[in-house]
């Protein structure tokens, strides 16, 4: 049987009750095929209304409990205790014997005398659930064609980057010192610039290296897991001030340590001033000699 939501059944019953001048419970029972269809007369069966103890229900729960004339109501009540309202509706419909389906109202149009032009011919046959077949996954977004609106700027920036790189390579010579010699240690020996912040950090806690490396390894793990740690769904900077502050501090710290490592560290990893003592950073050899 069709699963008719209880609230629709209720609404339909109310309309029918209003049209026929009977109680809602009565209308409901008729629609469920539990009682014979009302033959409308000038005197609605008011007495029946008085006899039904439950008032017109707002929620589907009392509906199932309504002592409608049909006998099979009680099992519904038991089922209802545990099941959802939809389940109740399903049960209520399912126990309707098909044979007892009332004849359409159209069969007895002559007996409707209170409003001859109104022929109560409709009957709730089925209800299509209010679920659209195609569901819009998200709000429509303002979009533009990738070609040309994205691909042209991309192309231009790639060309600009190429030009910049060729120009840079034409002007600045990549460093090449003497051949590698494991027996001659330069002083200071510096890592590539992106590790110099780390090297600088390690120089502070040399004896307790584990105390630095463990946080670093953990730091990478935390870095990767960051989206799972930061559960704040906001993206606007004003609503995620802590995260912004955190990252900015990290950036500043890494930047300062790297600059110190690159420019301010000389022989023996001692503090030097680049404008007084010179720069010990061979990767920028050509930059330094450029002046």
């Amino acid at each position: 049987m069709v699963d008719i939501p209880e609230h629709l059944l209720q609404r339909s019953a109310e309309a029918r009750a209003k049209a026929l001048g009977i109680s809602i419970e009565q209308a409901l029972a008729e629609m469920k095929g539990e009682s014979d269809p009302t033959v409308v007369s000038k005197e609605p069966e008011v007495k029946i209304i008085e006899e039904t103890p439950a008032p017109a229900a707002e929620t589907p729960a009392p509906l199932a409990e309504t002592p409608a004339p049909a006998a099979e109501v009680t099992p519904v009540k038991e089922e209802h205790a545990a099941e959802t309202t939809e389940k109740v509706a399903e049960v209520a419909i399912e126990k309707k014997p098909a044979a007892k389906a009332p004849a359409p109202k159209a069969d007895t149009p002559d007996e409707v005398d209170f409003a001859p032009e109104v022929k109560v011919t409709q009957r709730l046959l089925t209800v299509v659930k209010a679920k659209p077949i195609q569901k819009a996954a998200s709000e429509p977004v303002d979009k533009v064609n990738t070609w040309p609106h994205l691909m042209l700027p991309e192309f231009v920036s790639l060309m600009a980057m190429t030009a910049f790189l060729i120009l840079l390579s034409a002007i600045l010579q990549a460093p090449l010192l003497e051949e590698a010699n494991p027996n001659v240690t330069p002083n200071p020996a510096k890592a590539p610039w992106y590790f110099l912040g780390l090297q600088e950090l390690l120089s502070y806690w040399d004896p307790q290296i584990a105390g630095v490396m463990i946080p670093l390894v953990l730091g990478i793990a935390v870095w990767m897991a960051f989206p799972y740690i930061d559960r704040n769904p906001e993206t606007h900077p004003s609503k995620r001030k802590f995260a912004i502050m955190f990252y900015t501090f990290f950036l500043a710290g890494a930047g300062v340590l790297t600059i110190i490592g690159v420019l301010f560290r000389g022989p023996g990893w001692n503090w030097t001033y680049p404008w007084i003592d010179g720069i010990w950073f061979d990767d920028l050899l050509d930059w330094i000699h450029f002046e």
Partner: protein
Amino acid sequence: MQKLSLRDRIKEARVTAGDSFRGGKLMSSIFRPGSPFRKGYVDSPRNRSYVVMNNVLYHLHPVKVKRHGVRLSYTLCLGGLSFFLFIVLTITGIWLMFYFRPTELAYVDIQALQTDIAFGSLVRNMHRWGAHLMVLVVFLHMSRVFYHGAYKAPREFNWVIGVILLLLTLLLSFTGYLLPWDQLAIWAVTVGGNMAGYTPVIGAQAKFGLFAGLEATTATLLRFYVLHVLFLPFIIVIFMAVHFWRVRKDGGISGPL
């Protein structure tokens, strides 16, 4: 009958020849329908879609993107530039491989590259500065993503892949650092490898594995070379593919703020 001047007849012949070439079988076989290089391309919404859809580019870009995402100030093209620099580095790197042997001769080869080989110095410089630039651009890309909160749901996992890509970029740059086999290279790598030796628990093993011994030797050079030209690019390409794919699957570019 209007008589055409010689110049007009030449012009007409040129246009006709051009059209018949562009509309011919050869060009039609090369350029798929909707390509601007095919004859009869007109600027229409349908053709703009085809430019992407009927093209290998469709694996990178959707047909349409969010309007705010094409503003240069939103992404600064940093992700695209990272990828582009990787391509530049691949091309220059393959070129350099023709002239480089990862043995005791490495240093001599670099010297020859700088002095004997046409454009050798330029290509080597491009490879080196491009590598530094890539580290920088990838880092800036990560910062951009962070400040936009673009790592938030549903893009959490793509952030994880992005961090892996950053680490792989650093590793690629670091392994390449040794290859010139000069004093700068060997001692920078020694310092870096010693830092790896401070890794808790597996420090000694990590250092031994990295150096292929206790210190930087030509064995280390070969090891770094293979890592640099084969192993790490292979890995990073896989992660990049997943990274780009996830960008699209997670709903394109993030935002607007």
